[in-house]
């Protein structure tokens, strides 16, 4: 994808519980991103938001509630459910049709007003066979983790290293919700949730309002600042029942291959400079390395051991702390995009990776054991 759609401004809020209400939080990031782009609401062509009713604190039709506070009043706007990267894709598509030259893309989730994540993810289970046994994302992840350890000999310590790295990286991210200097033993010794998952290997429930402004190539030139280009994107959905799937051979490769193809990337291991990925469970980061082509099958454990994905590695993964540090469920994919944009611009502050970033990858996933994946490639 040649330089067609640029991200010209980004804004996000902090993940910890806030006394500000949903409206104020959503308004704050919307206003901030407009101010950063030097634009008014009237100049925005279209608005695409992402939210999810089940994560929306007891109000149905989430977009009804926040329509005007996200700048969409009397605009042609729409909404994506579940995964905020879909909203990025949709905003980009709307610009690519030529109907609009700017799009405000916003992900909304106020975790502190929602029930626990797994009370919500239980609602993904079909009501007849699976909900009764309590299938949730955490339970599906535990199955997946056990399979991963057994099939490839991935160790509990290797999984824990992801949490050590990401919660440590979170210390340098002012927006991160959960952070700290932990050892592998601390991670493995934390409360056992669903075997083999322990508490520090599971993402929290965070606040997260995330806003971006997209612009056509022509419009991007008029807007001051450093445009970051959307080079490619892709998504893929897997079958529903866990038993119908190979949980270690899911749809991430499909989603990533689509994005790489669009971006003209044949060797992601060499071309990707930094990656922000969605790892609500620590081991998934290792598994996603494989799906993203950073290493071969079953090699995720060895990759983290080698330091390849550390802050000083060849592809730093989740310098922001990732989703283990900050998990506003629906918004988390778009938050990865914001972090990737900041890295490319060299504006990531203390969490800026110590290398030149030309190309960055942002990834989102939702559903049991990664039923759906979405990948975006961004670049200078």
């Amino acid at each position, binding site marked *: 994808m040649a330089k067609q759609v640029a991200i010209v401004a980004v804004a996000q809020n902090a993940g910890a519980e806030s006394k500000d209400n949903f409206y104020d939080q959503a308004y704050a990031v919307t206003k901030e991103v407009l101010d950063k782009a030097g634009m008014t609401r009237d100049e925005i062509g279209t608005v695409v938001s992402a939210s999810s009713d089940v994560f929306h604190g007891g109000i*149905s039709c989430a977009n009804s509630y*926040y329509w005007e506070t996200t700048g969409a009043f009397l605009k042609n706007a729409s909404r*994506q459910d579940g995964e905020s990267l879909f909203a990025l894709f949709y905003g980009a598509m709307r610009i690519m049709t030529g109907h609009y030259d700017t799009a405000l893309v916003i992900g909304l989730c106020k975790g502190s007003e929602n029930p626990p994540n797994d009370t919500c993810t239980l609602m993904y289970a079909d009501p007849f066979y699976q909900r009764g046994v309590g299938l949730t994302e955490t339970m599906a992840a535990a199955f997946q983790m056990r399979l991963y350890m057994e099939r490839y000999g991935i160790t509990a310590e290797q999984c824990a290293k992801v949490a050590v790295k990401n919660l440590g990286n979170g210390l340098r991210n002012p927006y991160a919700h959960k952070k700290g200097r932990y050892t592998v033993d601390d991670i493995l010794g934390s409360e056992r949730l669903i075997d083999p998952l322990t508490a520090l290997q599971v993402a929290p429930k965070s606040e997260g309002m995330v806003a971006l402004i997209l612009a056509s190539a022509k419009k991007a030139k008029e807007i001051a600042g450093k445009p970051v280009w959307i080079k490619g994107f892709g998504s893929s959905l897997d079958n529903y029942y866990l038993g119908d799937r190979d949980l270690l051979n899911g749809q991430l490769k499909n989603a990533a291959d689509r994005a790489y193809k669009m971006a003209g990337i044949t060797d992601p291991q060499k071309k990707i400079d930094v990656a922000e990925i969605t790892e609500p469970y620590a081991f998934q980061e290792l598994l996603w390395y494989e799906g993203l082509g950073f290493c071969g099958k079953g090699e995720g454990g060895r990759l983290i051991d080698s330091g390849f994905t550390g802050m000083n590695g060849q592809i730093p993964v989740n310098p922001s702390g990732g989703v283990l540090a900050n998990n506003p469920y629906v918004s988390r994919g778009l938050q990865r995009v914001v972090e990737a944009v900041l890295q490319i611009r060299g504006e990531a502050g203390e969490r800026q990776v110590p290398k030149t970033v030309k190309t960055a990858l942002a990834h989102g996933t939702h559903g049991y054991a990664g039923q759906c994946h979405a990948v975006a490639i961004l670049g200078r």
Partner: protein
Amino acid sequence: MDVSYPELVREAVMAVFNETGLTPNDIDGVVSGTMPSMMEGIALTHFYFADAMQAAGKPIMKTETCGSTGVSIAHTAYYWVASGMADLVLAVGHEKMNEGNSQATMTTVAEPFYQRYFISGAPGVFSMQSQMWMDRYNIPEEKIRDAAAFISVTHHDSAFDNPYAHIKMRVTMDEVKNARIITYPVRLLDVCPNSDGACAVIFASRDMVKKLGRKPAWVKGVGYRGEEYFFGDSDKVVWESAIQAAKQAYDQAGIKNPRKELDVAEVYNPFTFQEMLFYECFGFCEPGESPDLVLKGTFSRKGELPCDPSGGTLCTNPIGATGLIRVAEAALQVTGKAGDHQIPKAKLALSHAMGGVDQFNGIMILGSKL
């Protein structure tokens, strides 16, 4: 009611593959959508219906905009193809309402602290809007009542010509006017049912249409607008979201006089009274004029601009699918495939859906020619 929710979705999806001769392998992407999770009893239904939609291994979008979801799904599929990122996109809308509680769900759309107590379910909002409209233009109540009853009678008759319609019953003007009050002035036969249904539509690029060698319905105009959440914040008579959504679509389609240029309209009409207000907002007639024209038959099957020859939402309302059904009906009309409810020589058709707390309006205009 005789099939499970995934089966309902599968039926519609397989029907569109059978009809077009395409296979799931041909599809570049899938757009899915419903009403909120409370209505479904299950959240993020693209997961549950991945197999039924034949979407495994496919790029996916999940579009939801409350009652206007169906038309928003069609819009997403359109933008996807028009962006050049796909040649064939499958759009699927679905709802299985007999297993849920639609009015309880819609009550939870309303703002919880101040408005929820007053705006219970859908009829509360739409009844207030009807009263506002009547009052604004000093339309005699009897005339409005007659016109609304006329719409109910004609749409219920039309439903007999639509094999997919839910409510098939002959009703008389007197029966409508004396039906049980739901929320004044809306009576039972002024209101849509709770339906089960799914709808699947395939959107194709121009190049793909050439390859397929099928007669398509071309997308001529796409409009959407939304307004404030609090019901009292916006004028629901001079209803800007409806007016501007239609205007955006008309401008794209080059339509200046919709009543003359459109051959048929599938207006989202869960309530008879509201259907007349839409006629005015969409420029089919002047403000306050619609009841007279309805009673003259201007919008009847043989009238100047037939509206809802399928029987419309009034007779069939599986909400997440309903807007997409309007689009599908418009496509059937302009391709001459609407069967017993075909409007002769229909070339240009409007489809519409509305949602939120009387808040969103979406339009898609389809034509027989590019």
